[in-house]
């Protein structure tokens, strides 16, 4: 995934991007793909892509928002392999179940089953709606910040979250 030969100058420019934005990008990517090894690969790909395009970025452009968009697109490409995505989301749902369980040996309660069902339904939402919803509810971001990370406008992010919650409320399972 990652080329092994990077010039020294390129490595230094990548070091600057990693130093300034590495942690927030890694957090964002990891929350999207739910897999630490994949997240590192995606972060590396993001930086290599960003570095390749850095010279074409207009002066005064918002580097942070631009990096988030590359990270988001790279993560989406990764997730588009459907089986991987499903496995990751099922793991995600399972983790939430473990975390939400009141006691480790309390057995399955009706609440747990409902939550598992809800997460399975979230997993089946269209990609942008699912990501916008997760960023809104799990990460508690405002629409402006969601737009920064996913690309598009704050109004678009709001619409995606609205559509997602509406579908979950109506019990719509398919896209």
């Amino acid at each position, binding site marked *: 995934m*990652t080329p092994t030969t*990077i010039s020294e100058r390129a*490595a*230094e420019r*990548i*070091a*600057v991007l*990693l*130093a*300034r934005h*590495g*942690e927030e990008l*890694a*957090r964002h*990517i*990891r929350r999207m793909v739910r897999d*630490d090894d994949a*997240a*590192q690969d995606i*972060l*590396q790909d993001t*930086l*290599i892509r960003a570095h390749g395009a850095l010279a074409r970025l207009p002066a005064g452009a918002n580097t942070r928002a631009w990096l988030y968009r590359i990270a988001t697109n790279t993560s989406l490409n990764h997730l588009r392999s459907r089986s991987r995505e499903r496995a990751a989301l099922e793991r995600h749902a399972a*983790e*939430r179940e473990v*975390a*939400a369980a009141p006691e480790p040996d309390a057995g399955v309660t009706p609440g747990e089953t409902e939550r598992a069902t809800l997460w399975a339904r979230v997993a089946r939402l269209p990609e942008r709606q699912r990501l916008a919803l997760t960023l809104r*509810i*799990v990460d508690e971001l405002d629409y402006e910040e969601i737009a920064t990370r996913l690309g598009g406008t704050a109004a678009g992010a709001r619409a995606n979250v609205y559509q997602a919650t509406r579908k979950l409320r109506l019990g719509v399972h398919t896209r």
Partner: protein
Amino acid sequence: MITEPIEVERRAVERIVLGAFGELTGRRREPLRYAMMEDTPVGVLGLASGARGLRHLSYVRDEDDFLKRLLDEHGDVPVLRTDTLDDVRRALARYFAGKRLDFDLRVDLSDLPTFQRRVLDATARIPAGRVSTYGEVASRAGSPRASRAAGNALHVNPVAIVVPCHRVLRADGSLGGYGGGVRIKEWLLAHEGARPGVV
């Protein structure tokens, strides 16, 4: 909804970034974490700490300038922006407010040459409100005749203010030089109630 504990996420994120640093840049040593203090009476300050304490407190133009210096100076060390250098920030805020002029912070000078480290150790023992001379500091560092070398060592003090190289003056009481500029040296001494020219 419940997410994983913040600390678990923080460690995983750090592993991912350090992994990428190693793969892409060959920087694999213990990381340096840096933060900026933009609005101080002496201008923009860059702070950087490793696991064993504060390693840089520098007068800088801006974040890019500071970051470039850190990456240049530490060729095999990953550098990460952080918002966790709160102890250093709080100590500096108290200092600038005049509430507490001495620092109780862990400072890591272990990377420096022995003589420079000794000079900075001697300098760190000059209390606020007092001043010393390059010759005195050289003597306390074990080399009484090396006052010029002591001056050079202080000029490249990596931890300004906290290691108070501004409290070291010429033997005739004149200010001498300062890495951040002589006007800042003057300001710091006045702020501490020391009178330049009266040793």
